[in-house]
């Protein structure tokens, strides 16, 4: 008997728009010692499924049907008091955001002991001893000291480890992990994923992993379920799933992933968006967006079709009775064209558009009554870059390494503390504000958060017009209006949308508006600050396609700030890897991805979860967290975490070693 059996689970939410069927007839099993992954884009009902299992739904939600059997006991029939014993004791949950899941005014030890005292007979010192063991088991160094610390004293990765320790405290049989690493950096993600996998094996727990990241799923899961619009559409073992995904939606998800071999081509996108779950579906939910849909898909809800290996899919294409029909459709689909554009982007010769030399951005730390400067946060500490027209330079690094600050300092949104930024030979740092304003039209920025980057009180037309008005690039009302319509069409929206407000648009559409706003003043340099990290994979593909197309047609130069290696592989020509305010390695995308020199680059690349788990190089798990830029380690900043550390690393920061071409690295290994 399986550990967890979910049978026809239905969950509804009441909202102003009507009844939202967030989870609609979902059934799956999780065996002990097995990881089952629920995969899907945002708004597909993954988290609602998890909350329904825990019976922790928001007030507006209720479970209207189905069974949740944990060891044969129906959880939905339990009283709330009995359910409280189940939560934490038999199944526990880890949430996405570790920062808000811990109580900030209690020490972490206290919070773990609370769980222990509630669910086990342990009390007092016994509970504390056990808490110590748990904190040690999740790999937190110096556990005795950490136990008495408060959440704000811990880094994000540490907090997530504490959350895991709390979840493990009741020794649960089933662990539900809801996007456990989405808020974490790649190297920390590798640590946490490794930990989860190991704990699960050691304790023979069942685990329900919820994720939107195919890479994480491939690394951790034994079986995979794909959710779309509130229902499961495909369930398969990991091997079969990644070798031959069946459902058209799954196909699309894979095709939308940016990969190095797709460079030069466009990424596959899914047209439209997930339908609102208030609709009553008469056919397949994916039919409207499916390239292989035919009449039957819109009329009849597809049934489950299970292959011999247990690979189940909910799609008419796999209906045996439909063999002839579906064969035709399948054949049509299998020639999914993928333009492998070999017209390799040749590096255009010429003077660099942007030249950054030894850029420094220090923020003073003030202390005491008189606000004396007690130290410096060296967010950016000597960054040098070169960028030519029509090229993309990716600035890669983890959060807190100073890459966003560097981007803003280059645009003079922050006035750099030192160094030089030359735009077409003109020194920006010394420019008087009036001259700088004139140059602003040449360099623009696209931000990460599509929700925060548009003023909610302004219409789309006014938002796009703002730059033109401020910089006076298009004179006359009529000329500007024409330009706005043109831009909206250019980024794939319609001119009729200019009168609407940002809240009426989805994340992807908002990002298009933000790009249109930047393009309005005809810039030549576009700083893209993680423009796709808040978007779903299929939407990310749309935005990446758009950026690529704009670069080809307008000859823009992109400074692409990101932590997402997959996007870099797809889009960038050159890479600069940043660690703690300094660039540790530079080179073309091929050089760096094929043959990373710096140990940090190596670790960063190996930590990215890959789909082809078998062919992956071993993950280099880095110890600890990134140090604070206010107090960087002596010598090479990376040496406390470096797997190849040498005695001299602690003494001095390595100088730049040129390795031919544009390639350079700052590491003693190559001196």
């Amino acid at each position, binding site marked *: 008997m399986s550990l967890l059996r979910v049978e026809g689970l239905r969950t509804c939410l009441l*909202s*102003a728009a009507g009844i939202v069927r967030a989870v609609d007839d979902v059934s799956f099993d999780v065996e002990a010692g097995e990881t089952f992954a629920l995969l899907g884009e945002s708004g597909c009902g993954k988290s609602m499924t998890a909350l329904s299992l825990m019976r922790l739904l928001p007030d507006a939600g209720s479970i209207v049907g189905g069974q949740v059997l944990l060891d044969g006991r129906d959880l939905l029939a339990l009283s709330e008091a009995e359910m409280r014993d189940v939560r934490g004791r038999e199944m526990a949950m880890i949430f996405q955001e570790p920062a808000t899941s811990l109580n900030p005014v209690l020490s972490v030890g206290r919070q773990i002991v609370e769980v222990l005292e509630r669910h086990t007979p342990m009390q007092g010192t016994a509970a504390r001893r056990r808490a110590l063991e748990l904190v040690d088991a999740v790999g937190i160094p110096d556990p005795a000291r950490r136990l008495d610390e408060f959440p704000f004293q811990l880094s994000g990765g540490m907090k997530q480890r504490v959350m895991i320790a709390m979840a493990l405290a009741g020794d649960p049989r089933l662990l539900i992990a809801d996007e456990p690493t989405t808020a974490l950096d790649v190297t920390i993600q590798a640590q946490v994923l490794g930990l989860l996998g190991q704990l699960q094996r050691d304790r023979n727990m069942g685990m329900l992993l919820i994720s939107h990241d195919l890479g994480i799923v491939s690394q951790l899961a034994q079986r995979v379920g794909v959710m779309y619009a509130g229902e499961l559409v495909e369930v398969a073992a990991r091997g079969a799933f990644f070798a031959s995904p069946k459902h058209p939606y799954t196909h699309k998800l894979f095709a939308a992933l940016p990969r190095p071999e797709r460079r030069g081509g466009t990424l596959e996108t899914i047209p439209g968006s997930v339908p609102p779950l*208030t609709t009553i579906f008469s056919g397949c939910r994916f039919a409207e967006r499916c390239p292989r849909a035919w009449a039957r898909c819109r009329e009849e809800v597809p049934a489950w079709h299970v292959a011999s290996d247990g690979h189940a899919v909910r799609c008419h294409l796999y209906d045996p009775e439909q063999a002839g029909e579906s064969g035709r459709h399948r054949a049509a689909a299998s020639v999914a064209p993928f333009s492998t554009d070999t017209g390799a982007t040749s590096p255009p010769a010429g003077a660099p558009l942007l030249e950054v030399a030894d850029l420094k951005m220090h923020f003073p730390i003030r202390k005491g009554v008189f606000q004396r400067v007690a130290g410096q946060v060296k967010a950016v500490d000597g960054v040098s870059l070169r960028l030519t027209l029509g090229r993309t330079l990716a600035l890669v690094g983890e959060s807190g390494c100073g890459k966003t600050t560097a981007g803003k300092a280059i645009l003079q949104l922050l006035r750099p503390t030192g160094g030089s930024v030359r735009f077409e030979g003109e020194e920006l740092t010394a420019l008087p504000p009036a001259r700088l304003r004139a140059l*602003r039209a040449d360099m*623009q920025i696209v931000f990460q958060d599509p929700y*925060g*980057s548009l*003023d*909610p009180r302004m219409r789309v037309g006014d938002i796009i017009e703002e730059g033109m008005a401020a910089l006076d690039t298009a004179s006359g009302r009529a000329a500007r209006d024409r330009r706005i319509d043109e831009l909206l069409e250019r980024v794939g929206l319609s001119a009729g949308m200019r009168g609407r407000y940002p809240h009426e648009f989805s994340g992807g559409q908002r990002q298009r508006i933000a790009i249109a*706003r930047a393009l309005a003043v005809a810039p030549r340099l576009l700083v893209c600050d993680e423009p796709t990290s808040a978007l779903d994979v299929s939407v990310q593909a749309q935005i990446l396609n758009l950026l690529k197309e704009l670069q080809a047609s307008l000859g823009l130069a992109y400074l692409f700030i990101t932590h997402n290696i997959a996007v870099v592989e797809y889009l960038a020509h050159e890479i600069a890897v940043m660690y703690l305010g300094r660039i540790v390695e530079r080179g073309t995308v091929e050089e760096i991805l094929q043959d990373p020199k710096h140990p940090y680059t190596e670790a960063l690349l190996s930590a990215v979860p890959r789909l082809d788990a078998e062919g992956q190089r071993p993950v280099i798990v880095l110890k600890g967290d990134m140090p604070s830029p206010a107090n960087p380690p002596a010598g090479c900043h990376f040496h406390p975490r470096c797997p190849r550390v040498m005695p001299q690393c602690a003494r001095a920061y390595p100088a730049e070693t040129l390795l031919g071409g544009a390639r350079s690295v700052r590491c003693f290994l190559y001196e």
Partner: protein
Amino acid sequence: MPIILWTDALVFLLIACGIGSGFYIGRREYLLASWRRVGESRAGMAALTVLAAFIVLGLLDSLHYRPRLEAVAGQPANGYSSEVRSALDALLLPLRSGTEKTYSAPLATHLYARETVELPDGTQARVFPRLRHGGAHLQDPVEEWARDVSWKVARGLAFAVLAGLTFAAIAVQAAALRWGVGWPAAWRRIRRGETQFAWNAVLATLAVLLLLGGPVAALAGGYHVFGTDKVGQDVLYLTLKSIRTGLVIGTITTLAMLPFAVALGIVAGYLGGWVDDVIQYLYTTLNSIPGVLLIAASVLMMQVVIDTHPDWFATSAQRADARLLALCFILGVTSWTGLCRLLRAETLKLRELDYVQAAQAFGASATGIMGRHILPNVMHIVLIAVVMDFSGLVLAEAVLSYIGIGVDPSTISFGTMINTARLELAREPVVWWSLVAAFAFMFVLVLAANLFSDAVRDAFDPRIAGRRIAATAQGQAA
């Protein structure tokens, strides 16, 4: 001769601003959506109906004029009285002119104090004499009083029912036309609250107001409904006159406060640096002086200025009005710190948002960014603060007048009424009606203002409204 007092001008300015912002909101969907949520709130709309009644009275009381002097025998009528009256005074002429000698209880026919009168037979006796106006139409008060009062109440109620039905009929007719349904269907929808705007709350409140107001109006024709005060003035008249003072204090003070709070708050938050330091020092200093002390000092200084320049004012009403206005400004100047602090904090947050940075990347000027991006995004805080402050200011006036540093003693206000009630309560037998009348009216006004401000806050506060929007958006996205 019409007279526009300073406060009148500002009240009209406020109304103009209100109408202007009405048009502004009408063109902006996101603002309209919030106001629609206010319109959906039953408590809010009931409160707004009550407030509207108060505002109508206050506005009537803001139309001032100086009556032409009656031609006195032998002299041509070519002057204006030095007394300034309002449209409300004209409407309430019987109440205003029907003064008694001294205290009389509500609906009484006799004075509340004994008087020595000379009887027809030449002896003297101490009796409660008949009132000059209250119940003067009764031949035998003891016999006829109860019948007369009930008759008048019945007439008032009948009138109220009639007026209420007329209003309801207008509303139903409008609704029927709008939805294209018959009267019964329209009425059913309104009654069951199926309309988006809370019409049923408005109509119910209106009915209650009419049922209370009708009998009072009918009785006021022959009696002093709330009695009379020490100098025989009708207390109902005094309370009605107090409404304007309360409204003026509550609204004009905000008008005086907003420029400081908004400009300084946004500038401090956006520019930061030494500007921020200066503004912060300013409001921390101001905040650390006890409020009442500061107000008392300012009011006393202002009083000295006014008293030493009697030539500035043509009439005593103008002088009292100047004092009222000055009080508003003093209250405003001393109470902007709270809102300023809130706005500074919000601006600090907004300043870091991407759309502000995007505007900076376009080289937009600081004033442009503050005006285009910051101000519209903090307006909900301003609005919430204004409606929440209103009731506080009405109460503050009462307190200040009570301790003698409020409005001019000749200005009728809740505060001055409560101040005189202090002596009345100490007297034996106790005179309770002035205090009760002032208290009841002020209570209703402040309660209505509070309920309305709650509704506004619920609709505009992103923490509350956002939850609702998020739920809706989630529903749509999911």
